[in-house]
Structures are given as C-alpha cells and as structure tokens.
C-alpha cells in the first residue's frame, strides 16, 4: 500500500501508456511526463505567487490579497485572466521578432531544466548520466533570453537591466557550479538520481544528507546565495530593481508576454530549488528513517516549497545590493569560499571516518568565513557608527 502510494504517479503513467499500442508507447510515455510537468509547475507557480503575496503581506502587517474567492485563493486566476486580456504593447521602434521570442526562449529553457530533476523515487523524466551538466548548460541559456528582451525593447532601462542581468548571471553561475562540484566529488556521479540515492541512507535514524556535513553546509549556503542571484531574487534582484530601473529588462513587456516572463522566473526558482534539494537536502528522501512511509514526492515538493518560503522571507526583509557590490561579492567572497570548499571536501575524503574530519573541516570553513567577512568589511570601512550630540 505504502509503496503504491509512493509510486502512484509512476503506476498511473504505466497504466495509461499500457493502453496504447506498443509502437506508440515510448513516445506516449515521454509525452505524458512532459504534460505532467507542464501542468504541475505552472499550477505551483500560481500557488507560489499567492503565497508570496500573502506572506509578504503578513510580514508587513497586512492581509495580502483576500478579495477573489475565499481567502483570496482565486487571485492567481484573476491575475491570469487580467494578463491574458491586457493589450500587448510592443514599442514602435522595438525589434518585434526578438521582442516576441524572448519570453518564449526563457520559458522553454526553464521547462527543459525540469527534465532532469528527480521529483520522487523513480520520478524523473530523463535519467541521464550527466544530468547536472545538462541542467547547468540549459540554465545558462536563460541569459540569452534576458538579453534578447533587454536589447529588443529599445528602452534604456531595459538595456541597463539586461546588462546587469547578464553580468550577474554569468558571475554567479561560477560559484553555483563550484558548490555543486563539491557534491559530485563526494558522490562520484553527475547523475542527480544517483546523488539523491547516495543521500538516502540513515545512521541512528538520521539521514546522510549533504547539508549535515561541514562542507555540505557551507556548500549549501554558497549554493543558496548563488541560486538566489541566478534567479534574480531579492536581495540580488538588481536586473529588475524597480526603484532604479522601473522593471529592468521587461519594462516594455505587457500582457501575456509579461506573464510569461513572470512564469519563467518562478519556474526558474522551482527548478533551482529542486536542484538544491537534490544536491544538499537529500532530494525525495525522508528526514527521519521512521518517516519512510510518507510518499517520496511529498518530501520533494515539501522541501522545494520550504526553500521558496525562505526566499519569500528574505525578500520581505532585505534591501538589495548595488551592482559593483554584487559583483565583488560574487568574485571576491563567494567564489573563493566555494573553491576552499572543494579543498574542504578533499580533506573530508582524505581524513576518512571519525570525529577528526568533522573538527578539521568545520574549522577550516569557519575560520575562512570569519576572516573573509572581517577583512571585507574593514576594507570598505563599513560598520556600525557612533554619533555625537550637540546640546
């Protein structure tokens, strides 16, 4: 019973595919999974937008949207109708073709990323050996769409937003990759399915998730920072920094195209959270061994939503950085730390089982963090100040 529930989607798919003649079965199987992804994640997007607006509202001592449907749960539908019926405005001198293609390029690329993310036991669309590599190469193509949008709009704000976005995404791709490499070094595989399975073991009922190791914890923090920047979320939302650049690269988009950009951005958030979950949070594995009976896909989606909630929380609190600070942060802090993390991983492997590797690895990362933080702040003369008073 438990395993049926766990595998319910897989069984359902097999049953549906089994109804078809055997010639069509491989194609139909893939198609069915694609349809599932294309349906589930936009639905999750709608839910997340609502959650975000509600959550931000609560953080700001207000209710958030609550007028459409009970507790405002139909708000996403209202938003969808609104964006579909709005006039699609293309600036007169814009490059109409590229302006049209840009949101499509973004959404297609982001959907492709989901192909390799394991969403439950046996629930992955394509289980390829180099799925991590696939994920990053597809993810890199989103930069293209951002620049297409910014360039084709013929708007100075769009252009500046696109420049910022490209610079930022390229810079943060490096630490993102580097922090993932740490996991690959331990697991010895680029396949996300294998990485998750390697973490699905328990000692004294506690899981072997990568985040529960010194290098994994540091790696996860780095990964989270880079992923936030990669998805242009606050505090790294400079490309669309509304107080400076109006709306950044999609200033000139309206109606459904704008909605597509919005969708693409949130889907990117899901996919990268899914990747982070798979790499560091044990993917679909349960947090305690006695919870083994809960279906694996619930764990996966639960973890993804949890990381999304953290992103919302951060968004509700933090102001954004400046462009040069952002780049400095990437190249002068996050990247060295991820490189050091690779050394840390090597140490972890070299030292073998025992308490020594815990102490050494933790100490290396902590000392490096404190030193880097303090020197960085001192260099920029940043710190709390005291004030004098005149009577």
């Amino acid at each position: 019973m438990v395993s049926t529930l766990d595998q319910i989607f897989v069984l359902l798919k097999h049953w549906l595919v089994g109804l078809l003649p055997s010639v069509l079965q491989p194609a139909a199987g893939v198609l069915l999974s694609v349809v599932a992804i294309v349906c589930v994640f936009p639905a999750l997007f709608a839910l997340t937008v609502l959650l975000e607006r509600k959550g931000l509202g609560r953080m700001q001592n207000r209710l958030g949207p609550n007028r459409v449907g009970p507790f405002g749960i139909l708000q996403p539908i209202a938003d969808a109708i609104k964006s579909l019926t709005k006039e699609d405005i293309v600036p007169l001198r814009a490059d109409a073709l590229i302006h049209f293609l840009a949101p499509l390029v973004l959404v297609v690329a982001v959907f492709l990323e989901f192909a390799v993310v394991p969403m439950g036991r046996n629930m992955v669309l394509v289980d390829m050996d180099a799925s991590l590599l696939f994920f990053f190469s597809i993810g890199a193509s989103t930069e293209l769409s951002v620049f297409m949008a910014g360039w084709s709009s013929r708007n100075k704000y769009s252009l500046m937003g696109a420049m910022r976005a490209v610079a930022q995404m390229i810079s943060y791709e490096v630490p993102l990759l580097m922090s993932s490499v740490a996991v690959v070094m331990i697991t010895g595989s680029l396949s996300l399915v294998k990485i998750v399975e390697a973490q699905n073991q328990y000692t004294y009922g506690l899981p072997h998730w990568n985040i529960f190791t010194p290098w994994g914890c540091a790696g996860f923090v780095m990964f989270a920072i880079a992923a936030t920047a990669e998805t242009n979320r606050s505090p790294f939302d400079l490309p669309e920094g509304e107080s400076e650049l109006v709306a950044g690269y999609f200033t000139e988009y309206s109606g459904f195209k704008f909605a597509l950009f919005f969708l693409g951005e949130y889907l990117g958030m899901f996919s990268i959270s899914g990747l982070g979950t798979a790499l560091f949070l044990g993917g679909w594995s349960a947090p305690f061994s006695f919870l083994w009976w809960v279906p694996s896909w619930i764990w996966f989606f639960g973890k993804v939503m949890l990381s999304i909630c953290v992103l919302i929380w951060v968004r509700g609190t933090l102001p954004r950085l400046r462009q040069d600070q952002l780049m400095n942060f990437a190249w002068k802090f996050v990247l060295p730390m991820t490189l050091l993390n690779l050394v840390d991983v090597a140490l972890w492997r070299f030292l073998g089982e025992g308490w020594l590797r815990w102490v050494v690895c933790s100490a290396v990362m902590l000392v490096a963090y404190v030193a880097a933080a303090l020197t960085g702040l001192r260099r920029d003369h940043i710190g709390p100040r005291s004030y004098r008073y005149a009577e």
Partner: protein
Amino acid sequence: MLGEGILKGLAETARNAVGSFVSKDRLTTVEYPEERLPLPEASRNFPFLVYDGTDWEKGLRCVACQICEKECPPKCIYIDKSKDKKPDAFGRPQIYPAKFDIDISVCMSCQICVEVCPFEAIKMDTQYELSTDDRFGGLLLDRKELAKSNEYYHQIHPTEASEVDAKLAAEKVKADAKAKAAAGAAAAKAAAAAAAPKPAEAAAKPVVLADAPAAKPQGEGD
C-alpha cells in the same frame, strides 16, 4: 560580524508575520466596505447647511451674508441673495439664499466657512461616500442637497452641536429681551402718545435688531 544584522532583520520580519496572526496591533488592515473605523467626533469632510425645524426651506439658518463665499480658499461656494425676505424657523423675516451651491469637487474640506460663519449656519459633514458617475452635475450640490437638519448635526457632532444650540439659545434670549424692551418702550411711547401702535411696526422693529450682527461682520470681511 557579517550576517548578524541580516539575521536580526529576518527575526524581526518573522516576528511580525507570526504576530499578525495573534495580535491586532500587528495586523492593521481594515477591510473597508465590510468593516469601518468609527469616525472621531471632530472628523470633517464637506460642508452642509443646518436647518431648524422640519421644513428645510423654511428653517435654513443661512441668511446669505456671503462671508463664506468670500473667505472660501478655493472659491467653491456660490451664493445668490434673495430679493425678498421670508420668515425663518422662528418666524423672523430674513434674507435667504436664493441659490447656495457648493462644488465639492473643488472643496478642500478646510472648514474655513464654518469658522467665519456668524450664524452657525454651515457645518462640516462626515459623509465620505459621495462618489458619483455624473462628473459635472453630480458633485455640485445645491441648497436642497446641502440642507441637513439640526438633529442630524447633533447626531454627527453631539458636543459641538449642543454648544452651538446653547449659544444660539442665549443669543435668542438676548434678542428677545431686547425686542421685548424695544416693544415695551415703543408701547410705553405709544401709550404716552395715546395713539394706537400699528401692529406691523412693532413686529418689524426687533427684526432690524436681529439683522444688525449680519450687516456688521460682512462689512468687516470685505
């Protein structure tokens, strides 16, 4: 230490997010059409004309002295004086506003008109749901729409209204005493002259007295 301030901030927002479910202090939203804040007594929005008694046309306190029209900062009051006099709620013949329009699309709710009115005839309303789809006529209120009873005034500004009533009553007592004295003097005079006084004259005299304060501030305000 790097990150400490950020964590502090995160804790603060978390506290507020959780607090919004427990404490009314941290959830300030008022869901307007269903839920309304009680208006404080001093609240003001647009002016209205007070009338005594039941008949609005008869009971208007306004005597069309046009001080408010002159003092109104955005000049949104338009008054036409009547040519004749009509008895007011207390039976004294008064000049009345033949036309009294307030363009509340121009009005800035400053209550200068209330302050300068010597007759307590114009007061501030608390009605705020006045939107209309008629852009030109809808926000131009004439004297019929502006006229509200003294009871209504008592309802929205009870303290202020009772003060005003007391003041008016005192003034009336004074005026009556004066009228009585004048009438008495006239009667004495008439008796002394042993000539029958014409009833119309006796009635007209106190009116002149009552009109006097109206004329004075008007000249001042010019």
